[in-house]
């Protein structure tokens, strides 16, 4: 869509920073992606222009209809997402809904409003009508908004952008991307994404990682600071953005791009080796995934199975909760393709910063301390049991494990296990086969769970430490709040001692302890985790090669010795310094190359 800004002059060189959510460097031209405003000033048309005004609106609607049908056809051809087809079907129905279509025409005819203004009134009416409804119904106003915007785009003569039609190589810059935008982003010409909104789990981030193209999100003001065709550099690792860079900067980043490419291909060659340390310990390196479609990257990076399958992505942006059958299909597909390696399925982790339209999540003052994750499941028992049933039915390869998120105490764990047993009984009575010995684990991500880990250990087969939440809850730091980002310290002594405690409990009760947070993919953090006695890590698939290279260059015995010293230190700064000092010693022969790659560590970058 030609932006209104495109005629203006470029604003010169600007550097910005956001959070890098999909690594790699891209250098290209900006293509702004934006949606029309639904707040339109009042306008009237002359009496003898009413009929042509109505015609103009009708043309815009039929154009919109064609666009949606076209998108639907492409999505179907790609065999993607049934969920998305449902959304598009709903949109087509809304398009011809008399409360939108007839009502807009009525306002043009009776009040002589211009089409844009009439449509904006219609949207406001709808908003009012929906405002008092229960959540499940109220959420649908987003679809009404989406469809009104599409009509508005066509009314204003701006072509609704389809990212699929992008012909030159561009970096897409947007305020935010909706699920349907995200769905149309499958062009080879898209070099990267930058958005103002969003975090690591936004659509943009997920899609970018799936496409393996760089993305930076949470860049405030980016749409104001850039124009179409500006040259832009984005670094999906550091989160740096440079608009209209100097030729020196372009060359620097071209070099970095080249270095990354070379490194990645070398690392992939390394994939044939197993992750053994120099002194012969095997460190399990598993993958975190969101969708069944990601299993291919697991083969590519030679992961030791799936350490975290985030099932909530099946539920997000759905207009209906996925049925047992649909969930079963996804879980079974992953289990079958990963077999004989294990797959840890985490039950629904909704709430906090992830909300699903289809689920009636309460509005809370403090969602991270609210009804999220296992709490949501225990409150919405039928959704929880449906999921457990789907997982159990999909467990016939005997390689699925169940993991509950955000367990904060013994009671919750017992209750979750009771549901699981009840569902097993139900399946037995119906002669449905499943893995009778399916293993169950608890995520340790709340400080209280660390304190009572011994009580929990008696009732589970494994622990997995979710470092992102554990850090946020231990240090009382909102991980999305930029103002206090400096307090978010993975190396805080409290965090390291907690991890160490859980490792001790795991040894005492003979259950494995793994790490599945961001720390598991940061090379310097991984050194510290190994030093603390961790032997299993789960991370984004493409982080596996570099972590494997690191694992193969260290000795566990030497690291553990170092680890015992770390636990006595009193500040994150001290720990970080000591780690940096010790790096050359910790990395044995052949470690120079690893050391080079450590520069990518965000822990070092923030020092």
């Amino acid at each position: 869509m030609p932006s209104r800004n495109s005629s203006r002059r470029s604003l010169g060189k600007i550097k910005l920073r956001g959070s890098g959510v999909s690594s790699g460097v891209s250098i290209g031209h900006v293509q702004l992606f934006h949606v029309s405003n639904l707040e339109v000033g009042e306008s009237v048309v002359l009496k003898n222009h009413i009929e042509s005004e109505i015609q103009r609106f009708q043309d815009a609607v039929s154009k919109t209809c064609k666009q949606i049908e076209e998108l639907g056809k492409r999505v179907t051809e790609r065999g993607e997402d049934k969920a998305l087809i449902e959304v598009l079907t709903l949109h087509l129905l809304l398009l011809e809904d008399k409360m939108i279509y007839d009502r807009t025409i009525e306002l043009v005819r009776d009040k002589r409003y211009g089409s844009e203004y009439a449509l904006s009134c219609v949207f406001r009416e709808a908003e009012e009508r929906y405002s008092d409804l229960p959540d499940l119904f109220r959420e649908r106003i987003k679809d009404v908004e989406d469809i009104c915007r599409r009509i508005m785009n066509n009314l204003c003569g701006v072509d609704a952008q389809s990212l699929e039609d992008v012909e030159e190589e561009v970096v897409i810059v947007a305020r935010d991307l909706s699920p349907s935008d995200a769905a149309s982003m499958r062009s080879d010409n898209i070099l990267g994404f930058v958005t103002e909104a969003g975090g690591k789990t936004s659509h943009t981030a997920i899609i970018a990682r799936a496409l393996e193209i760089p993305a930076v999100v949470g860049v405030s003001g980016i749409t104001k600071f850039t124009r179409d065709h500006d040259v832009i550099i984005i670094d999906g690792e550091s989160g740096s953005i440079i608009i209209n860079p100097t030729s020196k900067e372009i060359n620097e980043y071209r070099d970095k791009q080249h270095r990354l490419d070379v490194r990645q291909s070398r690392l992939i060659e390394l994939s044939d080796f197993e992750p053994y340390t120099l002194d012969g310990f095997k460190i399990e390196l598993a993958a975190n995934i969101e969708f069944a479609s990601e299993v291919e990257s697991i083969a590519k990076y030679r992961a030791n199975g799936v350490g975290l399958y985030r099932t909530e992505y099946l539920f997000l942006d759905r207009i209906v909760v996925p049925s047992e059958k649909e969930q079963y299909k996804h879980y079974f597909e992953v289990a079958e393709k990963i077999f004989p390696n294990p797959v840890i399925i985490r039950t629904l982790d909704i709430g906090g910063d992830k909300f699903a339209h289809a689920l009636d999540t309460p509005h809370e003052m403090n969602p991270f301390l609210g009804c999220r994750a296992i709490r949501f499941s225990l409150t919405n028992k039928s959704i929880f049991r449906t999921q457990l049933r789907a997982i159990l039915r999909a467990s016939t390869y005997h390689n699925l494990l169940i993991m509950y998120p955000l367990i904060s105490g013994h009671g919750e764990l017992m209750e979750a296990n009771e549901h699981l047993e009840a569902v097993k009984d139900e399946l037995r009575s119906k002669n449905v086969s499943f893995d009778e010995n399916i293993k169950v684990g608890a995520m340790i991500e709340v400080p209280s769970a660390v304190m009572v880990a011994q009580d929990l250990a008696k009732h589970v087969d494994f622990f997995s430490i979710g470092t992102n939440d554990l850090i946020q809850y231990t240090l009382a730091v909102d991980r999305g709040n930029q103002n206090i980002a400096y307090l978010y310290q993975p190396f805080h002594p409290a965090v390291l001692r907690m991890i160490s405690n859980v490792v001790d409990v795991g040894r005492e009760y003979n259950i494995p302890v793994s790490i599945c947070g961001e720390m598991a993919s940061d090379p310097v953090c991984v050194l510290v985790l190994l030093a603390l006695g961790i032997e299993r890590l789960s991370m984004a698939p493409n982080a596996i090669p570099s972590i494997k290279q690191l694992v193969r260059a260290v000795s566990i015995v030497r690291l553990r010795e170092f680890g015992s010293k770390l636990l006595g230190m009193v500040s994150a700064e001290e720990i970080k310094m000591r780690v940096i000092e010790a790096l050359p010693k910790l990395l044995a022969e052949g470690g120079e190359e690893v050391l080079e790659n450590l520069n990518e560590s965000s822990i070092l970058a923030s020092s």
Partner: protein
Amino acid sequence: MSNSNSITKTFTIINELGLHARPAMLLVQAISRLECSVNIEKDGFEADAKSIMGVLTLAAEQNSHIIVRAEGPDAEKAINAIEKLVEEKFGED
């Protein structure tokens, strides 16, 4: 309660999530091309059953009662179609 082309019937929504987006879509699609007008009343509020926005704003949750009034040559077809959907829980488990 019915003459040749006007039928009224009361239904109880039994599927778990009520007349939310997907069931509402199915309902609208089932009757939108029929030659009759169809109204749904719930708790004193009325909506055109051929309007997805209207049906959604009824916010008919599980166990709510809806009164469906169809008028026109296809009235019976419309009532039957809706009855089938409601009974089959709109295809949900």
